[in-house]
């Protein structure tokens, strides 16, 4: 029998040993925990975002195997053979750029100077006094979207609480841009489904009712998605009410030259406002008119009442661009500068633009003719002819649009919008049949 102290000693020793084992085990656990990351994702709770409504149309089209399928969702020009089109002047410009062995240095934050100059001149006219007076701030942006976003960020920072009024309906991404930029927005009446035309009185009324100093988003030409544009007289009245309420016009110009075929005609709304001495914002895109979709080339222009204001505004736009992408991509800007800067290429560009706009006008006419030839009810389809640009609002409702897709394999957006850029003369009759069937047989 050992003395009691020995037992305590033995127990203590044993306890110590247990302690040592436990500590080693915990330490090894700790080592494992430190070396390996947590098991659950930090992003586990993130939900799947819905697919983009417009791009989803093209995906569904691609999956369809029907021989008569037609993609009228696409907002990109197609030839009569329904192929994408790279303009001849663009290929020539790219070859020139390659031959010259251009460098790839960073552009300044505001973009390529030659591009900005050409863009302002295209928009306002080269001899416009505003340009001579240096009252326009032009900053190269990432096509229309990127330019709108820069402007939205400027509004958020310098006009806190100011609202942007957007047309009902409008391009689907407009509201996303203003939401992400945290700029409040509301709608003004625009499309009248009863007439498939402009709800002019509603538009004027809603603009008038908006709080003073609101930004009014206007489509310079070829309204997307309706194709319905105000007449010159209506533009004057719109300018009147905007001036009356000290609102600021904010133009989205995505189709200059592409709508009518004439660069000047398509800029007339913007020039009308500028000629009145109004300050305005203009987001421009070369996606459609120069077919430079994927190059992301456009600009935000701010016409100010003084050169000093324009310089200050430009400096603040730069401050917004720098933490977003630092400086814009050079390739598309050089193409534009080369095309616009060379008289021969510029001429050729105008011809190609007339060709594209011409093809769209001609399928528009052919579609209308086909529908009228088949529909003997006397319904007035002339709104199709009055609309302008790439898109046409067919007047079909959602169920009817679904019928177009389900029965006729014609892909379009649910609001009844079709892209005439995706229509060939050869398919006009088929489309006419589809439209007539959907309109009369589906409610």
């Amino acid at each position: 029998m050992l003395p009691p102290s020995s037992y305590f000693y033995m127990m203590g020793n044993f306890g110590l040993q247990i302690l040592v084992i436990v500590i080693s085990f915990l330490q090894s656990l700790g080592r494992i925990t430190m070396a390996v990351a947590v098991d659950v994702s930090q992003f586990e709770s993130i939900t799947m975002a819905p697919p983009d409504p417009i791009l989803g149309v093209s995906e569904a089209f691609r999956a369809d195997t029907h021989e008569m399928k037609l993609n009228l969702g696409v907002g990109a020009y197609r030839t009569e053979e329904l192929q994408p089109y790279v303009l001849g002047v663009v290929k020539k410009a790219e070859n020139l750029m390659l031959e010259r062995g251009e460098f790839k240095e960073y552009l300044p934050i505001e973009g390529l100077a030659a591009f900005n100059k050409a863009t302002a001149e295209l928009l306002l006219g080269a001899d416009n006094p505003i340009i001579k007076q240096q009252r326009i701030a032009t900053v190269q942006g990432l096509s229309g979207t990127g330019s709108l976003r820069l402007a939205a960020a400027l509004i958020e920072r310098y006009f806190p609480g100011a609202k942007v009024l957007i047309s009902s309906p409008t391009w689907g991404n407009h509201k996303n841009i203003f939401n992400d930029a945290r700029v409040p927005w509301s709608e003004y009446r625009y499309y009248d489904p009863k007439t498939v035309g402009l709800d002019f009185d509603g538009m004027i009324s809603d603009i008038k009712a908006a709080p003073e100093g609101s930004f009014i988003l206007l489509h310079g030409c070829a309204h997307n998605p309706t194709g319905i544009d105000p007449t010159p007289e209506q533009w004057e009245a719109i300018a009147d009410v905007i001036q009356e309420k000290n609102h600021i016009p904010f133009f989205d110009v995505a189709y200059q030259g592409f709508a009518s075929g004439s660069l000047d005609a398509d800029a007339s709304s913007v020039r009308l406002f500028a000629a009145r001495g109004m300050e305005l914002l203009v987001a421009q895109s070369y996606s459609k008119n120069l077919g430079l979709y994927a190059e992301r080339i456009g600009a935000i222009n701010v016409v100010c009442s003084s050169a000093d204001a324009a310089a200050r505004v430009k400096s603040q736009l730069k401050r917004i661009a720098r933490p977003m992408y630092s400086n814009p991509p050079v390739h598309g800007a050089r193409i534009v500068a080369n095309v616009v800067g060379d008289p021969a290429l510029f001429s050729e560009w105008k011809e190609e633009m007339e060709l594209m706009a011409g093809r769209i006008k001609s399928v528009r006419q052919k579609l209308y003719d086909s529908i009228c030839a088949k529909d003997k009810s006397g319904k007035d389809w002339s709104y199709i002819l009055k609309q302008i640009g790439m898109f046409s609002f067919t007047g079909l409702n959602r169920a009817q649009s679904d019928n177009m897709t389900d029965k006729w394999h014609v892909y379009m957006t649910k609001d009844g919008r079709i892209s005439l850029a995706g229509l060939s003369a050869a398919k006009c009759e088929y489309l006419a049949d589809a439209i007539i069937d959907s309109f009369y047989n589906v409610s």
Partner: protein
Amino acid sequence: MSASSDHQDSVFSHVVQAPEDPILGVTVAYNKDPNPIKLNLGVGAYRTEEGKPLVLNVVRQAEQMLVNDQSQVKEYLPIIGLSDFNKSSAKLIFGADSNAIQENRVTTVQCLSGTGSLRVGAEFLARHYHEHTIYIPQPTWGNHPKIFNLAGLSVKPYRYYNPQTRGLDFQGLLEDLGAAPSGAIVLLHACAHNPTGVDPTLDQWEQIRQLMRSKGLLPFFDSAYQGFASGSLDADAQSVRMFVADGGECLAAQSYAKNMGLYGERVGALSIVCKTADVASRVESQLKMVIRPMYSNPPIHGASLVAVILKDRDLYNEWTVELKAMADRIISMRKQLFDALQAKGMAYKLLFILVIHCTPGDWSHIIKQIGMFTFTGLNTEQVAFMTREYHIYMTSDGRISMAGLNSRKVPHLADAIHAAVTSIA
């Protein structure tokens, strides 16, 4: 209504003139300077020994191929960009054999170079991640805090650079990250830290990794110099790969501005490595929601060039050779500048003059630092002096771009630095 608006108040009256960007503004000032001896060591753009910008041969070849290819069109890319580019970029940074890639746990989206990738990643985190603080090293690239603030994150510093040793304040780094709240985001420069050129060793990276994983800190890598820092693409990606190999999550912003010389084309990618393929796919869908209202889809040209080069074995190999040549030239510039400063006997003069500031009296940091930039240790007054008297343009924090230096200009630069440290304290 009068067309003249001199008397009309502008709605923009309250918009003040913004100052020039501190980094890009250096080039603006340089361009305005008429003096022929001027030297631009501001922005990090590579220059040849002749002082000219460089377009890589592989890039020229790829461009010719694209122009000759009749099937090339300019249709909108998907929101997340060119698929081949995305896949190749992920392989480049994470390694072609990366488990994370094979398990489909990585989402990679094409973005506008490094800045665009950082901004999209930060916007995503501000919307979908539970912690909205990002820790950034002191110092860091000047644009970092602006990007994160505008994206909706708040920015906190962690100690990084030790001015006394002109090296890494590793203890300070560990303490500060150790004190960060669990789950906080941490910005890490994958290699060639900008502006200091001071990188952790691999051992130190391993310690950083362990600390971060134990606290659930989320790594956000900025990789702007892969291949450009050491000359080896794999070596320069070690830090990132270490964090992916442990099975954990991280973000990585990649830029091809420097290593492919594609500066103005704005080519880059954001990758998010997730725990599972399902999470990665949901994350990708939310990245699209950030991109679409910002610029809809990314520019095609630069990404097409990268995709061509990365996928063609010969072009890829040729690229690695051109990359190593650029990295080697910079390393040689470091040596030449160091030698020139040594030759001026500055070491001893500095010990004498600067001992009061506890500054070590040697310029060996110039050859110890890695990458495009050197943190000279010059203060703002000395920098202003160098610009005024010697027409040498650099950022006011004393950072010079070695990529903008050539052998002919080394004596001029050494003279300027010598004059700056001897005439201004």
